[in-house]
């Protein structure tokens, strides 16, 4: 506006004087007698401005007010020159300032909104993006290692589970075998049905026991003996046979009446041969006047169960 104002870039003028060399805009005052920067900015004017500086500052406050406001203050200071010229000038400058400030507010709001809402990577700088990428790669590596470790443990657990399953199957198979041998499980398979038909003398327990021993020797795996009333008793290692009254038989404490049938699971031909050897079971029963009928069974069913006795003294050897 006037020659006493120099460009400072900050919006306030620098009074031109002989004691003040015009430095570049925005630079600190290099003079040794400069005032305290805290007390006074290096760009601030040294002396109080002249009185006519107040006039434009005052007019920009509200340049669109009525002329009466201008009359009381501005005209008191300014000379009685043409009032219309400065009015137009200030008006255009005020419009310019308003436009600039509106622009500032606009960009400020836009920037604030962008910064607050746009957290995407589009607004990030290149080096930030590189750093983010590096972080993500490191994280990916870590996660990959985690995945491989977890897959390893999964494999181990799976193989352990398979081993456990195999052990369980083996144990189940052994339990089944032992249950059949101990008479606690029903069994079926190829075998024989041996019927004892009494002749003049009843079938004695010794004959039956002989037959059972022969069958065991011939590889019988499961046996049961049933009487004429279909009552059945499983024959296990501890089964005993006693002669009862009237040709009956006491097997493991149960009374069976004739005719007796031993159902046995095993190799049929071997057992048949064992029963038919000279002087064997068939011959002995025939000698007593009785008869033994040996029938092959495709599927011999041994369904009677032996109730296992609770062991009181014997313990497994660990």
């Amino acid at each position, binding site marked *: *506006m006037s020659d006493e*104002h120099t*460009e*400072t*870039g*900050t*919006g*306030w*003028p620098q*009074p031109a004087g002989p004691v003040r060399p015009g430095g570049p805009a*925005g630079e600190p005052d290099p003079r040794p007698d400069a005032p305290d*920067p*805290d007390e*006074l*900015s290096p*760009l*601030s*004017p040294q002396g109080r*401005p002249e009185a006519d*500086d*107040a006039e*434009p*500052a*005052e007019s*920009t*406050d*509200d*340049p*669109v007010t009525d002329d009466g406001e201008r009359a009381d203050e501005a005209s008191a200071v300014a000379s009685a020159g043409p009032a219309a010229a400065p009015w137009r000038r*200030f008006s255009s*400058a*005020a419009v*310019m*300032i*308003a*436009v*600039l*400030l*509106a*622009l*500032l*507010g*606009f*960009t*400020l*709001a*836009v*920037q604030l*909104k*962008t*910064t607050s809402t746009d957290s995407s990577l*589009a*607004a990030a*700088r290149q*080096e*930030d993006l590189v750093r983010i990428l590096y972080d993500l790669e490191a994280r990916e590596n870590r996660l990959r290692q985690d995945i491989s470790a977890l897959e390893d443990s999964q494999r181990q657990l799976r193989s352990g589970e398979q081993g456990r399953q195999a052990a369980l199957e083996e144990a189940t198979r052994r339990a089944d075998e032992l249950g059949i041998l101990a008479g606690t499980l029903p069994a079926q398979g190829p075998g024989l049905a041996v019927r004892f038909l009494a002749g003049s003398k009843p079938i004695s327990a010794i004959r039956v026991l002989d037959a059972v021993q022969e069958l065991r020797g011939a590889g019988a795996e499961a046996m049961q003996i049933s009487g004429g009333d279909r009552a059945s008793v499983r024959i296990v290692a501890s089964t005993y046979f006693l002669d009862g009254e009237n040709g009956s038989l006491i097997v493991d404490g149960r009374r069976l009446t004739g005719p007796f049938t031993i159902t046995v699971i095993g190799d049929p031909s071997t057992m048949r041969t064992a029963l038919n050897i000279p002087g064997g079971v068939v011959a002995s029963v025939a000698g007593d006047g009785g008869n033994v009928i040996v029938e092959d069974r495709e599927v011999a069913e041994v369904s009677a169960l032996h109730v296992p006795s609770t062991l009181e003294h014997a313990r497994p050897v660990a």
Partner: protein
Amino acid sequence: MIAVVALLAGVGLGLWLDPTVPAALQPYLPIAVVAALDAVFGGVRAKLDRIFDDKQFVVSFISNVLVAALIVYLGDQLGVGGQLSTGVVVVLGVRIFGNVAAIRRHLFRA
């Protein structure tokens, strides 16, 4: 008065229109805003010092914004964009602090 109204109008317009910043301008806009803030605080201080000059304000405002953006652009071209924009922000922040201190002294006499 008109300045405050214009500032508020600009803020309202920015909030209302909600435009997206072009990607090419994204690094420069924050620096330009800070430079403009520096100019505005300088203007307020000059007004309180009763030495406000509107033409100078307009010129300094525009040149501040342009120089700040130019510095950041140069820094980006030289590969030191981040550091240079930090430096610009520091310098402008120091100036804003000084201006605000002067305004505070004017307003509160302290």
